[in-house]
């Protein structure tokens, strides 16, 4: 098993922490993982992206040309990464602010309305967990339980009161995708 994933969006959307939770989930299942952010000035407002690899075997390059899964959360990221999904791969995008939808027919495309769901939940902070839920539903690379364990390891203990909200968002995210 090996999944090569890119997650991209605006800085502040929780792109890097979503990748971190995903990487931790892989760790909980004793997999090899790498997490490589774009750490430039773009982190502070512009676009941010992170490459996560989860594998049963030793991982060579943390930097990739193409991806099994792309999770894109704004138009720039969609424009940049749609062409970099491997044929037969998966593209997940949030519809909010998207004016040009994905055009490829040789990949599986999932639209999630996670931003709309945050309005329903009245909780903007739930956004990345909703998307993560959708991701592991579309591509069950790690078990939900591992994600929850991973979340616990990622959040500092003083924020552990936020675990139930995050778990709820994760499970709600899984319902946002119809397979």
């Amino acid at each position, binding site marked *: 098993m090996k999944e090569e994933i890119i997650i991209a969006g605006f800085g502040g959307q929780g792109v890097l922490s979503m990748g971190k939770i995903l*990487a931790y989930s892989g760790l909980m299942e004793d997999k090899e993982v*790498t997490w490589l952010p774009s750490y430039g000035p773009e982190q502070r407002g512009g676009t941010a992206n992170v490459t996560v690899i989860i594998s049963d075997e030793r991982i060579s*390059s*943390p930097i990739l*040309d193409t991806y099994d899964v792309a999770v894109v959360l704004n138009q720039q990221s969609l424009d940049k990464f749609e062409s970099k999904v491997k044929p037969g791969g998966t593209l997940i995008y949030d519809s909010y602010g998207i004016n040009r939808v994905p055009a490829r027919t040789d990949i599986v495309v999932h639209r999630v309305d996670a931003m709309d769901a945050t309005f329903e939940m009245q909780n903007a902070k739930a956004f990345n967990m909703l998307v993560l839920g959708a991701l592991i539903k579309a591509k069950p690379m790690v078990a939900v339980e591992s994600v929850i364990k991973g979340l616990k*390891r990622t959040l500092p203990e003083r924020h552990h009161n936020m675990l139930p909200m995050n778990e709820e968002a994760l499970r709600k995210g899984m319902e946002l995708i119809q397979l």
Partner: protein
Amino acid sequence: MESDIRLMKGNEALAHAMIRYGADGYFGYPITPQSEVLETLEAEMPWESTGMVVLQAESEVAAVNMVYAGAGAGKAVCTSSSSPGMSLMQEGISFIAAAELPALLINCMRGGPGLGTIQPSQADYFQATKGGGHGDYRLITLAPSSVQEMCDFVALGWDLAFKYRTPAMILADGTVGQMMEKVILPEPRRRRTEEELREQCPWAVTGKKNRKRNIITSLELNAPAMEVINNNLQAKYKRIEENEVRCEALNTEDCEYLIVAFGSMARICEKAMELARKQGLNVGLLRPITLWPFPAKAIEQAARKAKGILVVELSAGQMIEDVKLAVNCQVDTRHYGRMGGMIPTPDEILGVLKEMFVK
């Protein structure tokens, strides 16, 4: 065991490894992409647990001279920086090497020259391996390619530094510093006691009691005496060259094409090698782990049947000079590199390899 396996950035692993080594002191000044070293040390507050000193100096020049002083007292001390900051430290590093003191130096390289960018680079290879400061000195130079190696090379670097009484450098880059991977942290060791230090470092300035006084200096105005000091240094460097070469070889037996790359670049080249082998090309990879002493013999052996060597670096071509020397220019050796913080992808490297050699 679960708690010993952690996911962390290379820079964070450096900091945790220092504390667990039983380090006495860290002196640094923040600079991207290695600021997490100081940040992590400040967050862990080892001065409360092990007594390790952590200090943000007023400049890189101050930091390296604090390391000079701590090392003179026999302490396990370290500083870290990124390229422009490392340039500021070169005078101090030359002094530390001349005074034959053990110290751990870490350079998490970024794109240059000048202030350059904050993205990864490997263009400080010359500076690290050929002596960035003045005079005939060498740095044991370790090039980690994973977060685990960032962690492990802290202990290895200090052990070698104390063994040979010479500074050792971890030459990392922005990618290994910023990347998160699984890491297994070593068992914590306690710091040496003053008694242990006096016994293990009889040369250190520890407060003279019933012994000849120790003098730590790099100054010797008498030229014949200074030549003797130089000869002794060179004899030590020869011992290091004979005993401390480290490298990793993948598929190099009878390989037709050899890639030589270090640090994060070796990881990307490993993927390029995997892709090439899937296409039926007999490609091997040799990764120098010690950049000095350089694994010249291993490269010469790996290239015996090779039609060509591709040296891939995040620079205009620095390590390639040592590779050409290793094979005595008997094998067609070419370079591919990106600069200024740009990073080539596996496909890009495979394309270059095919274009240059396979046709």
